[in-house]
């Protein structure tokens, strides 16, 4: 090794000793007339040098010793070469040369071994060799780094007690496996010098002697604590994800992109009594028999087209009951756009559907109730309308009798009375017909009607309310208007609602200034068909801008005891007639509600 060849900092003693020894041998060899091969002693100098010097140093030492032997020979026998002396010198030189060559060779093989051991030290893995008694006989630098003990501290210790090894299985089983196969690998838990735990991946190899007896076991340990930790984290994250998926209030599933078979279902499925194994590719078959064909068809089309789909169907549960589910699924594609999996979720919408049904039902009932309420408000008006002619009939009848019972019966007067009776009877009957039509339930029947007729028919029904609210009524009707296609009764209902609202809106304004104007007209525009309009304009309190936009919403009312259904129903009626109803605030007081209905061609009788 070059560093050692330089002599080392503290290694000056041996070179000095070698030089001294060489000098002493040279003096004895030169000055003493001994007839022996003193030069052989140079071998010791070469051997001493070989412990410290490198290859070149050893050769130089050898050459120097040979030179010194030759120098002594020439000084001693320079004038008389006798055969014995030459032989002695040859033996000495040969001995020095052989020693030098052997030292060089030994040095080279040592260097190779050292560099191999250094290579083992270069790996980060901890390499430990123990003998059959579990005593550590080799401890790599990687082991020093991993466990904290230096080689000197570790070698000679019992490996199991030093590292406090925790085996994943019975250590005897491991030993047995190593003895039969020569190898074992697995995870071990060790404790470092500083007391911290470490998890290692350990690979064992058995070394045998020439006769095949096990002599040592080499273990290569890799620190996998970080990997273990991240694996644990990953497992936790996966478990968390699974819990989240299970907690989703819906039946989550994934299905194979080709076969359509279910691959995964979340806990909601098992809650409902389903397992993946029971479902397979025909998962849609858990739907109600009536819903199956559609669901099956949609799923087949989705698989074929790759388009997400959404459908609702009744799904059977373990207890045999069916619940409405919303089935939604979407494909997952890879980078090339190939579908690799389908993900879906079935959401239970049974309760929501039931609530929606109940709401629709309630709305329908409310609408009818509102109509009845409107009717109730009108009852007093209608009662008056009926009572007037009845009172007239009774009084006329009584008067008629009196005319006839006179001493001289007055037939003319009696006849007039009877005529008035008939007229009033007809009048009462008309009111009853209107009332019956008004309260009739059933499908709206659209027929061509004239808006002015509707207005005229409606007025008697609201007259009393207008009177009660001390409202002055003005009519501003355009005489000749095209007919509209409408349900007469529904249109009357809308008009009554608008008039009653207007009358109530004017309660807050002083007597004498409560004016209600009902006008009819026609609107023509380039783009649309002409519209027949009827407007109800009041001089009441009106509403603010914020309320204006909400007036037609159901349950919205500006009246303290209002149900907020009247205008909402009015709008649905008008919209069902493909018309419009618009509320605007007047420039001065009050509001105007205008209903526009498409005019139809004149074809009425």
């Amino acid at each position, binding site marked *: 090794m070059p560093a050692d060849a330089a002599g080392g900092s503290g290694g000056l003693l041996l070179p000095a000793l070698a030089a001294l020894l060489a000098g002493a041998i040279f003096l004895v060899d030169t000055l003493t007339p001994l007839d022996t091969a003193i030069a052989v002693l140079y071998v010791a100098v070469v051997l001493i040098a070989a412990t410290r010097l490198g290859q070149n140093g050893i050769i130089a030492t050898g050459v120097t010793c040979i030179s010194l032997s030759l120098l002594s020979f020439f000084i001693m026998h320079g004038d008389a070469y006798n055969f014995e002396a030459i032989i002695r010198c040859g033996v000495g030189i040969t001995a020095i040369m052989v020693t030098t060559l052997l030292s060089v060779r030994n040095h080279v093989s040592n260097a190779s071994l050292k560099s191999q051991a250094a290579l083992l030290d270069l790996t980060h893995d901890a390499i430990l060799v123990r003998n059959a008694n579990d005593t550590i006989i080799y401890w790599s630098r990687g082991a020093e780094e991993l466990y904290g003990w230096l080689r000197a501290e570790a070698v000679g210790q019992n490996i199991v007690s030093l590292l406090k090894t925790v085996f994943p299985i019975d250590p005897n089983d491991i030993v047995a496996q190593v003895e039969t196969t020569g190898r074992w690998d697995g995870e071990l838990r060790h404790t470092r010098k500083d007391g911290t735990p470490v998890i290692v991946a350990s690979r064992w190899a058995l070394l045998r002697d020439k006769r095949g007896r096990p002599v040592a076991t080499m273990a290569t340990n890799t620190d996998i604590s970080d990997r273990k930790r991240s694996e644990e984290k990953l497992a936790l994250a996966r478990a968390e994800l699974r819990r989240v998926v299970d907690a989703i209030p819906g039946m989550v599933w994934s299905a194979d992109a080709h076969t359509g078979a279910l691959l995964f279902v979340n806990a909601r499925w098992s809650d409902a009594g389903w397992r993946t194994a029971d479902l397979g590719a025909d998962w849609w078959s858990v739907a109600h028999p009536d819903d199956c064909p559609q669901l099956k068809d949609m799923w087949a089309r989705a698989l074929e087209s790759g388009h997400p789909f959404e459908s609702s169907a009744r799904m059977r549960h373990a207890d045999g009951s069916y619940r409405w589910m919303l089935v939604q699924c979407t494909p997952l594609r890879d980078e090339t756009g190939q579908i690799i999996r389908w993900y879906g979720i079935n959401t239970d919408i049974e309760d929501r559907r039931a609530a929606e049904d109940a709401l629709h039902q309630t709305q329908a009932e409310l609408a009818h109730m509102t109509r009845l309420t409107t009717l109730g408000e009108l009852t*007093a008006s209608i*009662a*008056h309308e009926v*009572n*007037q*002619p*009845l*009172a*007239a*009939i*009774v*009084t*006329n009848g*009584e*008067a*008629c009798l*009196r*005319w006839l019972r*006179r001493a001289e019966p*007055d037939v003319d*007067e009696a006849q*007039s*009375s009877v005529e*008035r009776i008939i*007229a*009033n009877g007809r*009048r009462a009957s008309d009111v009853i017909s209107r009332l019956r039509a008004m309260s009739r339930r059933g499908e709206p029947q659209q027929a061509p009607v004239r808006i002015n007729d509707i207005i005229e028919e409606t007025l008697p029904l609201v007259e009393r309310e207008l*009177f009660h609210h001390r409202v002055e009524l003005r009519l501003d009707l355009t005489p000749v208007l095209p007919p509209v296609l409408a349900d007469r009764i529904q249109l009357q209902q809308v008009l009554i609602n608008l008039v009653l609202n207007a009358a109530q809106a004017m309660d807050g304004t002083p007597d004498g200034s409560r004016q209600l104007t009902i006008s009819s007209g026609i609107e023509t525009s380039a783009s649309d068909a002409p519209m027949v309009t009827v407007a109800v304009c009041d001089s009441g309190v009106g509403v603010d801008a914020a309320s204006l936009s909400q007036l037609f919403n159901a349950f919205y009312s500006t009246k303290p005891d209002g149900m907020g259904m009247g205008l909402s129903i009015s709008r649905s009626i008008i919209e069902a007639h493909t018309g419009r109803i618009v509320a605007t605030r007047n420039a001065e007081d009050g509001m105007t509600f205008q209903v526009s209905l498409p005019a139809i061609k004149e074809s009425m009788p």
Partner: protein
Amino acid sequence: MISPPSQRLPPSGGAEPFVIIVDDDASIRESLSSLFRSVGLRVELFASTAEMLQAKLPDAPRCLVLDIRLPGLSGLDFQDQLGKSDNTMPIIFMTGYGDIPMSVRAMKAGAADFLTKPFRDQDILDAVASSLEKDRLRRETDRAHASVETLYQSLTAREKEVMALVSSGLMNKQVAAEIGLSEITVKIHRGNVMRKMAARSLADLVRMAGTLGLPTDRK
């Protein structure tokens, strides 16, 4: 059946009694008109109270048959308005439905009757007959009052004083002591009072004093 009022009611002021009908419903007006005419009553028909107030009506006993709900001024408001004026007359209200608060208010304000349509002919004829009779009596009283008042105004201040004291039941001597005159002078005044007031007896004079609202009881 009642006998025609013309036969039962003595003519007062020469004019025949009549019934005023105010209802905005023509059929009701006409039926009532026919009914009243059939028993010989004169009628005046109006669609509103405003029309009625503008009309020139004969000076004769009258009563008003009024629908309680009318366009413009309501029946009850009209009743109040009439009550405050000199133009008083019995009012029979008609209503389409039995509204108790309304009828209570009408009756408290002095309505003659309150009938719900349709009513029996006898009910309204009875109500009309008694109302006309009441109005005739009121008119007579008014007229009597008016003539006594005219006579009373012809008395001197002293004579008025004497009349009041005599009517309250004092003897001539007591009257004399009361106003510091001789008994003879009181006698002369008293004689003038009896003559000017055309009183046939003391009792007659006391009644006149009652009509005039003089205190007749000083005991």
